């Protein structure tokens, strides 16, 4: 791990996030949600917790697309992970999206990361200037 914090648009980010400690994830200036093949949330960093107004204990172990971030449960986000899983392909795409953080619609960039060989998939959230 380098001393420089990871950037939202850094290459090979999934692999590098896999190596981060919880403390390093909490120090990032963008939201990190990690989840397994069953969609249950395994990582929820401090930035995301603060933005969404939910503490990690309310979120960890919950299914992401139905119980944590239902706003992403459509073909733009959830289905991309399903498709990547079915096709056994690498997913690394960044899309413009709107999240409802504390019920306020907030424009964000979402980076969706999934590697066939890795157990953890990631949704990364970066706020966009309005």
């Amino acid at each position, binding site marked *: 791990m380098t001393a420089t914090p990871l950037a939202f648009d850094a290459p090979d980010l999934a692999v590098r996030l896999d190596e981060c400690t919880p403390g390093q994830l909490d120090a990032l200036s963008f939201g990190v949600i990690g989840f397994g093949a069953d969609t249950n949330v395994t990582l929820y960093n401090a930035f995301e917790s603060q933005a*969404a*107004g*939910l*503490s990690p204990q*309310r979120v960890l172990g919950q299914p992401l697309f139905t*119980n*944590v*971030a*239902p*706003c*992403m*449960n*459509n*073909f*733009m986000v959830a*289905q991309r992970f399903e498709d990547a899983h079915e096709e056994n392909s690498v997913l690394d795409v960044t899309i*413009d*999206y*709107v*999240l*409802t953080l*504390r*019920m*306020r*619609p907030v*424009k964000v960039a979402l980076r969706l990361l999934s590697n066939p060989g890795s157990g953890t998939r990631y949704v990364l959230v970066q706020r966009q200037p309005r």
Partner: protein
Amino acid sequence: MNRDPAAANAEHEALIQFLYLAPVGLVQADIDGEVVMMNPVAAQLLMPLSRNGGLDNLFVALEGVAPELRAAAARHAESYGKVCDGLHLHLDAGGGARRGPQILSLTLLKLDAGRLMAVLDDVTEQLLRERRLRQNDAWLNAILAGVTDYALANLDLQGRICDWNQSIGRVTGFGPEAVGQPFTIFYPPGALALEYRQDRLREADASGWSLDEGQRVRADGGEFWGSTLVAPLPDREPLPGESGSPAYCLILRDMGERPGQGMADSRQEHADAA
């Protein structure tokens, strides 16, 4: 209201989570449609409709599927009331939305002169079920109107005829006065044991159906050879306030002349002997 800050924070967080998890889309907007608050399901349902990648304005987001909405809200003169109630929005099924909702239901409520609230729900499955039900009804009506040798009737838990249709009239000659009578009115008087009706119903309950063949009688007293099938219906517990609801279906087939000896099975002999 709890004054302990930690408890108040926990309450606030629980309320936030309640809105995150609510399984319908909720949006609050100002009178021009500018979104003030929305919950995640609203974003889930609306994001695929957004043409500019944002959800700043409800009317803009819905422009492609409900272009008249802005004008309808502006026309709504009263300060409080529903601008639309359960309006169906048919989405473009193309693109990547092959597994997504096809039809949304939208209710738009004017809260006061300055505020609107919208409720959005995915009603695709519900509408598909309703359509299948209407199609099944149409099939059944076509059968009831078209079959010539069969009478189809609903029976209640006691084996009484629940309703009348053309097929009953055609095969048996009985009119609507048959409703409320036991299905044994189609049998020659005095030919049946007292327990016959209950026995048929119990057999249908136990084995899924009860079939017998034998002499049957029309309203005018004329006899014919027929088979009677009784089968239990699902969901037959009456709803509160309901009585005499269908519990069995009866299919009475007019087989014409009595067949030669030896054709009938043991059930028919039982019916004849009873």
